């Protein structure tokens, strides 16, 4: 054989055409392109309108109903401005974390499984795309989606609602920190779902485990306070304490650290499992 198969002729032809090759990043090859496409799916289609309406209705709509409609129906529910402020914040953080976590599980359940089942993951991985880049792009796009639609927009709307109901403003920096706690809870469920998507082939197992951890953790924490040391079961209380500058609940620091550690662990497992997956 005379031809040299080692010569990268494809690169030479592309260079002659003026095309600039993508810089290779090893473990991150393809990350930017996948992330751009995933973010395009969130923001470049009608999905962003649907998500915006959905979360504003679920979280802020329900909040508005309780804050504005109930007192007008039942005048005995009229309370002071300070109480209104506390109720509004309590409602927001509880709704954002409970509904947001469920929403995050539902929204991201297909991110990996659907791609494995449909064959698009195999197609992408036949291109110069690293498996780590695939998982990390899914995580980051999910995080941005969660940050914007579930945490960001609803937090902004809730801030306005809180003011309208109490005519008092919350300090913005502490409010943002409270929103950060919401985001941490969402990250916990996002990374868990991505990991479960990498492990399982069917949605049933994924949903069962993720929802089981969410609801099971909440129920278990009522009977065993120990659970709150290592699962994000009191994140709403923590966020509320942060915003209102009150003492943090028992096990708050442990819970926050554990949530972060779990998220890193889930991400690592997802990378490891997906790295060994066969298509």
């Amino acid at each position, binding site marked *: 054989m005379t*031809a040299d*198969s080692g010569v990268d002729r494809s690169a030479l032809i592309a260079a002659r055409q003026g*095309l600039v*090759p993508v810089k290779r990043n090893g473990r991150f090859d393809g990350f930017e*392109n996948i992330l751009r496409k995933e973010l395009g799916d969130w923001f470049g289609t009608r999905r962003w309108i649907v998500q915006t309406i959905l979360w504003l209705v679920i979280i802020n709509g329900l909040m508005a109903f309780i804050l504005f409609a109930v007192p007008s129906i039942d005048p005995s529910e009229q309370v002071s401005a300070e109480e209104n402020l506390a109720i509004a914040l309590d409602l927001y953080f509880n709704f954002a974390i409970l509904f947001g976590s469920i929403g995050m599980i539902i929204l991201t359940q297909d991110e990996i499984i659907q791609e494995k089942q449909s064959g698009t993951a195999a197609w992408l991985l*036949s291109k110069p795309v690293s498996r780590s880049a695939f998982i990390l792009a899914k995580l980051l796009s999910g995080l941005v989606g969660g940050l914007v639609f579930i945490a960001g927009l609803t937090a902004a709307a809730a801030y306005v609602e809180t003011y309208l109901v109490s005519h008092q403003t919350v300090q913005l920096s502490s409010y943002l920190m409270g929103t950060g706690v919401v985001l941490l809870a969402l990250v916990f469920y996002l990374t868990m779902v991505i990991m479960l998507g990498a492990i399982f082939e069917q949605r049933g197992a994924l949903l069962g485990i993720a929802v089981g951890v969410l609801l099971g953790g909440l129920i278990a924490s009522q009977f065993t306070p120990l659970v709150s040391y290592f699962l994000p079961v009191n994140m709403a209380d923590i966020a509320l304490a942060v915003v209102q500058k009150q003492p943090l609940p028992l096990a708050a620091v442990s819970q926050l650290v554990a949530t972060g550690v779990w998220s890193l662990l889930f991400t690592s497992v997802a990378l490891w499992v997906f790295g060994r997956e*066969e298509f």
Partner: protein
Amino acid sequence: MDGSNGAVIHSRGLSKVYKGVTALEGLNLQVPPNSIFGFLGPNGAGKSTTIKLLLGLIRPSAGTASVFGQDIQRSSLEIRKRVGYLAQDPRYYEHMTARQTLRYTARFFYQGPGDLIEARVEEMLELVGLENKADRQIKGFSGGERQRLGIAQAQVNYPDLIILDEPAASLDPMGRHDVLAVMERLRKYTTIFYSTHILDDVQRVSDRVAILNHGQLVAEAPIQELLAGNGSAVMYQVAIKGETWQAQKLLESQPWVQQVLSSEGDGCTSLQVSVSDEEAAEEHLLRLILEDRGLMVKRFGRKTYNLEEVFMNIIDGRNGNDS
């Protein structure tokens, strides 16, 4: 030295076992540059498994392989940078259009400039005749259109190697014709390694063929060698008018004649003469027949095989041996 000896694809003892079931066993393969290499075999023979191994989609259980002299496990990303791949059942994001899919594919290889990427996308759309459907969502595409899109996305990066898994399986005759024409056109730029069970196509365009059965390589040769009956006895076919029994007896008495089979049809007797000495046959066979002045030879020539016969002989022979 990687031992590939300049081959684009080189494998040594490549094997894959899925949960105790052997899908591929000890594959030794050499695909020369700029060849159109047909990879044949019945369903479940291990063709797709081989392709997935080469692309790093699955890991080998044993053996090694290299593409462009680079190890398929250690340098998979580098290899995929220079490869175009069309899957057997190509799947894309259904909500994306053909243009978006090609742009997305191109962006894995090129960061810009945007206008040149768009030009390349347009070129690919024209190549496969999808320019009129470029901005339709893929979910409305027929099987043939998906296949065309698959061929386009496999070429967007000017690949040094195109791997096609059953590229014409879901196409109508016109579509098949187009695919083969594209393959022939690309021959001077690239190496094409493709699996198929459509033997007519292989015979038309391939330079070299490998046949896989039950995960094992059972034949590998240049197509002309296979069609000439590689490994089989040399056979001549003679169509004769007249009483042939004397000529038949005469032929059977020759030491270089192994077997003479006769059949009747179209007012002629057809003799199939297997010989052990090709030179002796070329020199004497026709003369011996014509010694009988009452015979008229209507046709004479060496029997050539079509790929289907070769394929069936090899596969049936192997399956017969297995049972």
